């Protein structure tokens, strides 16, 4: 504060005359307004400078970190001193109020009191800055200028000293201050012409009318003007109806206003600028404070922030960029690149439009003569339909390029091009890039699966009807065949020689050799009966005799029981006995199939028409017949004994059922998915079976797996008639009405985990000619050799090796 005192002292004299000024009559409205506005300007200017300073202060503060050089404005104060802010604000507000009051009431205060009060204020507001004091001071010292200096002679402009001015001493005479005796008009600031009709012009402070002063006439005016040399310097005060003499200062203000100059002569708008910051390098720093220590020690705050990042990196919250990271190239569209047609990176499915044909010679504006059309050609071209024209233009010749007219077809051509592209959509054809070989299941080559029959070796000729059934005897030397010519023939396999022929009285539907090597017996299904034939001569006398006794043994037993109506065991006639027939079993319905149990004692017959007694099991040694099923589900097609276990398979039209004969229960039902089963064979190991069906399918069942077919093979073109497993080799075969015989490699592994391997190895085509829509009727494998025997409707039997 003491530092600012000199300035104050210098301004005090300015303020001091303010009360003295009160004597001056109230300034004119204009005069009053002008100083106000001036004050406002000054104030603002002061504020501006303060602001500047504040800014500087702030800047310095930012430089000097914590050094408190806050600015003067209240908000800053409030920020810096929150506890006293309110008070400070209030105080400053009070200051302002006071200042306002001072404007009007300043006349009651002397300069000292102002200074004192100002000092008091300063004291009260201990933290108040010099600037605010300065503010007040300025305000103080402008206001008095008006009232006080009105009477003073106008100082010459040259005398103008902006800093210190000598004011004339106030002379304390009676006239000097009229405020005590003057009765002021109290009507306020109203248009005075309201009082034009009244004798008074207003009221004094006591409420008494102020009477309109008497005014002279024009002559008086003139005289007064003539008398008073200063009369032209006076102005009429309507309020009190008197002429007021203008002071020199007021005149000066008027003059300055008229000159469009700043009314206050003291104000210098072009004060020298104090360059706080400039290009000049100061020798001495602005602040002499030593460099703070923190400039030289690492910042703890920074360390904290760095550690935060380091921690984040360690914890993996911040992942550093991969090493191979290449910052993406800025992509710019090369507008002027004409090498590529593609405007941008294409979509995957984008198909570039086919390019247009390049123009040829005849499209040139100056084509060689040979390209120019002749008259006829032009005529022809014109006559042609637009669609038929080979080209949609005629070559034309111009001497110079500048002679070439505008191309009229351009829009049309572009349109057609767009139409072409639009109406002929380009489609990406996805070519399947699959090697067809890879889709074929990996099967071993048939070459590696030899031996299997490949070629016809022997034909067995002699039958005169369809050969319905064939069977090879267990030794593999003889084959029996039953035919529609009502004969059973026995053949020598190795030569194809017919060794014996048995003439029967019905069509032979089934012939089966007894499976035992000890007993040579051939079961023949023929009409309503089943015959058991002992072929003589073919076998050694020992075997023949044994078989004879075996077949005869049953007759002794049968005599005891009453005849079974379903199956009657009968002796053959002597003539038949001579032929070799040893036993007849008469059934109620035609027998379609005979099959042996593996031991050669039991055999089963199928007579599909016999309803519940369709399936019968006969015991040869006791000449007994059993009916295993009380009721048959569906029409029985085939039956088969299990090769090792006491199981029995019954194939109806759609299902194959597996029964346990010992426990007399159904074990399993195979759902074949075919419409009509024609044939059935069980794998010699007993775990698999195949069926053939009239709807061309061959199904392989793995009995351990499921009741659905393991594989369904549909290779035949016609109904399958017969299927057969080889007893030794991993082979099976099927024959069908199309006359073909198909041979498959069907390996069944001992390993339970491995599924059977089925490989088609050979198709023997047109083995049998089709006769009456029937082709191959029966296939049978040789028991020891990989030879296949098939019989057909063309009366032949063929052996393939």
């Amino acid at each position, binding site marked *: 504060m003491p530092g600012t005192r000199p300035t104050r002292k210098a301004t005090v004299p300015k303020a001091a005359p303010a009360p003295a000024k009160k004597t001056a009559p109230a300034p004119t409205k204009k005069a009053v307004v002008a100083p106000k506005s001036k004050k406002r300007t000054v104030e603002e200017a002061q504020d501006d400078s303060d602001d500047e300073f504040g800014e500087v202060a702030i800047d310095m503060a930012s430089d000097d970190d914590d050094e408190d050089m806050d600015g003067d404005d209240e908000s800053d104060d409030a920020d810096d001193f929150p506890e006293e802010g309110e008070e400070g604000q209030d105080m400053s507000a009070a200051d302002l109020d006071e200042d306002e009051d001072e404007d009007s009431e300043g006349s009651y205060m002397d300069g000292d009191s102002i200074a004192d009060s100002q000092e008091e204020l300063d004291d009260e507001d201990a933290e108040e800055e010099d600037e605010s004091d300065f503010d007040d001071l300025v305000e103080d010292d402008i206001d008095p200028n008006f009232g006080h200096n009105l009477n003073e002679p106008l100082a010459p402009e040259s005398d103008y000293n902006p800093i210190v001015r000598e004011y004339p001493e106030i002379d304390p005479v009676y006239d000097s201050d009229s405020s005590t005796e003057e009765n002021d008009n109290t009507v306020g600031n109203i248009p005075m012409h309201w009082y034009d009709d009244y004798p008074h012009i207003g009221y004094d402070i006591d409420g008494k009318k102020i009477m309109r002063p008497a005014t002279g006439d024009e002559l008086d005016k003139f005289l007064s003007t003539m008398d008073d040399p200063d009369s032209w310097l006076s102005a009429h005060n309507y309020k009190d109806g008197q002429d007021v003499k203008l002071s020199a200062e007021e005149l000066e203000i008027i003059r300055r206003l008229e000159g469009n100059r700043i009314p206050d002569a003291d104000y210098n708008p072009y004060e020298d600028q104090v360059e706080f910051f400039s290009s000049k390098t100061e020798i001495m720093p602005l602040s002499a404070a030593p460099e703070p220590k923190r400039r030289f020690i690492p910042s703890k705050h920074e360390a904290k922030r760095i550690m935060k990042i380091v921690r984040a990196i360690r914890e993996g919250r911040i992942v550093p960029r991969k090493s191979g990271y290449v910052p993406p190239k800025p992509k710019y569209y090369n507008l002027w690149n004409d090498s590529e047609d593609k405007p941008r990176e294409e979509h995957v499915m984008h198909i570039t439009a086919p390019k247009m044909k390049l123009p040829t010679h005849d499209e040139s504006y100056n084509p060689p003569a040979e390209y120019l059309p002749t008259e006829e050609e032009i005529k022809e071209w014109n006559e042609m339909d637009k669609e038929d024209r080979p080209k949609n233009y005629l070559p034309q010749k111009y001497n110079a390029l500048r002679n070439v007219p505008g191309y009229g077809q351009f829009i049309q051509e572009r349109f057609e091009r767009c139409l072409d592209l639009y109406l002929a959509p380009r489609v990406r054809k996805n070519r399947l890039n699959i090697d067809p070989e890879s889709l074929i299941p990996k099967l071993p080559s048939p070459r590696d699966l030899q*031996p299997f029959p490949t070629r016809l*070796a022997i*034909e067995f000729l002699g039958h005169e009807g369809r050969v319905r059934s064939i069977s090879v005897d267990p030794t593999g030397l003889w084959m029996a065949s039953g035919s529609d010519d009502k004969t059973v023939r026995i053949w020598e396999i190795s*030569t194809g*020689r017919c060794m014996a022929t048995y003439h029967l009285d019905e069509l032979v539907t089934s012939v089966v050799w007894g499976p035992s090597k000890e007993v040579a017996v051939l079961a023949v299904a023929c009409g309503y009966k089943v015959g058991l034939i002992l072929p003589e001569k073919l076998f*050694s006398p020992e075997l023949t005799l044994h078989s004879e006794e075996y077949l005869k043994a049953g007759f002794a037993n049968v005599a005891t029981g009453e005849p079974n109506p379903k199956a009657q065991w009968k002796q053959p006639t002597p003539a038949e006995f001579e032929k070799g027939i040893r036993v007849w079993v008469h059934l109620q319905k035609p027998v379609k199939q005979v099959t042996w149990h593996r031991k050669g004692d039991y055999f089963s017959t199928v007579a599909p028409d016999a309803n519940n007694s369709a399936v019968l099991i006969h015991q040869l040694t006791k000449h007994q017949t059993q009916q295993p099923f009380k009721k048959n589900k569906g029409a029985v097609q085939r039956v088969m004994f299990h090769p090792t276990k006491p199981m029995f398979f019954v194939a109806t039209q759609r299902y194959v059922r597996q029964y346990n004969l010992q426990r007399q229960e159904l074990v399993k039902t195979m759902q074949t998915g075919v419409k009509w089963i024609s044939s059935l064979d069980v794998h010699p190991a007993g775990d698999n079976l195949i069926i053939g069906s009239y709807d061309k399918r061959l199904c392989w069942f793995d009995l351990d797996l499921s009741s659905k077919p393991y594989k369904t093979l549909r290779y035949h073109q016609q109904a399958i008639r017969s299927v057969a497993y080889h007893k030794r080799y991993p082979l099976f075969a099927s024959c069908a009405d199309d006359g073909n015989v198909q041979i498959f490699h069907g390996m069944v592994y001992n390993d339970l985990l491995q599924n059977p391997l089925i490989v088609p190895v050979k198709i023997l085509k047109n083995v049998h000619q089709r006769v009456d829509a029937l082709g191959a009727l029966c296939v049978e494998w040789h028991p020891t050799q990989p030879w296949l025997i098939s019989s057909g409707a063309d009366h032949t039997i063929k052996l393939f*090796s």
Partner: protein
Amino acid sequence: MDAIADGPQVQVKFITQQRQFAIPETAIQTPARLRRYGLSQIINLVLQNEGEKQRPFDFLIEGEFLRTSLAEYLEEKNMSTENVLTVEYVESMLPPTPLSSYEHDDWVSAVQAHRLGGFLTGSYDNHVRLWNKQAECTQILTGHNGAVKAVQWLTSDGDNGTLLSGALDRSILAWEYSHADNSHSVLYECRGHTGGVESISLNATGDKFASGSTDATIKIWTTIIPTVSDHIEDVTETRKKRKTVKEDRVLKAPISSLNAHTGPVSAVTFSPTSADTLYSGGWDHSVRVWDIENSVNITTKNCEKVVHALDYSQHSGLLASGHADPVIRLWDPRSEDSSVVKQTLSGHQNWVTSVSWSPSSSYMLASGSYDGLIKVWDIRAKGALYTLSHGKATKKVFSIDWSNDILLSGGEDNQMKIHKVQDMTERAEA
């Protein structure tokens, strides 16, 4: 000679093992385009054989018959024409010529010719027939109850002789015949087989014979004529005898039985050199070598196919076998290896049911097949030398026999055919 002298030439040195046709062993400039016929002309020129005396020759280069021109051969073998080519030549075998056919009543399943001119056939009409060269049936030996499947000469001096026949009735009958009084009789009946007799073979010394049967056994019998029946213990047999077997037959039992085969034995043949060595083949895919003295199976060779026929050549020491496939396999019985086939001859279309080596040549061999063809092979040549038709193509050939210059064949067409084959004795002797 001048006419054929153009074109590239090869220096050829002709050699031969047939001395009667030997020419000086000097290299001769020969046109490379010459084939067998041209080379044969050259030899005949050098030998100065003309007209009727001209003989056809076959040419062998490194043991293989020349079937192309010299140039083609050299090109194929990638050989230079600069070097001297050594070519062996042998007299060509003339094509067999059909002589006559002998009509039978039924299929002819077995044929055998005798050196002295008689032919023996067995037929499916259960008869054994004797024929002379005039295609006359001199004797019909009746006695079998089944198709005769094997016949074998024992002794013969032209008019009188003995022979063996085996049949599907499981018996082997030994016959004695005499053309002088046109009589024949059963010497003895060999009992023991329980299956049909498929094959009979007499050993080199003539004191034993072997029979192979479908009962999977080989039985060895002596040729000594017994005066009383051997005791054959079989109850059933005695009961059957009343009906089927004539009482006057002397029965004979085998001296030994070889049981190693697991399927029907279809072929047995003795080694012509060793009286105790027997070769057999059967449906069990094996070719076995036996020592009958000790009844030991010496070696077993396996192939994948049923053996239908066997023949052993004393000249080449090779065993030829016919199978249930169209291939003839040649075996070296002395090798220990069990499944090494020395050579295969393919050309037939169906099962080969009979093979017969040439009695004189170590390279020549004949085979009969179910495709109705008889093929004559030289094992040095790639294909068959000659293919003879027995009868109709579909008629099977069951049996062939090559004896001296005669090739017999019997088949399904009820015929026995005789082909005249060039006697190769000279060549062998050479």
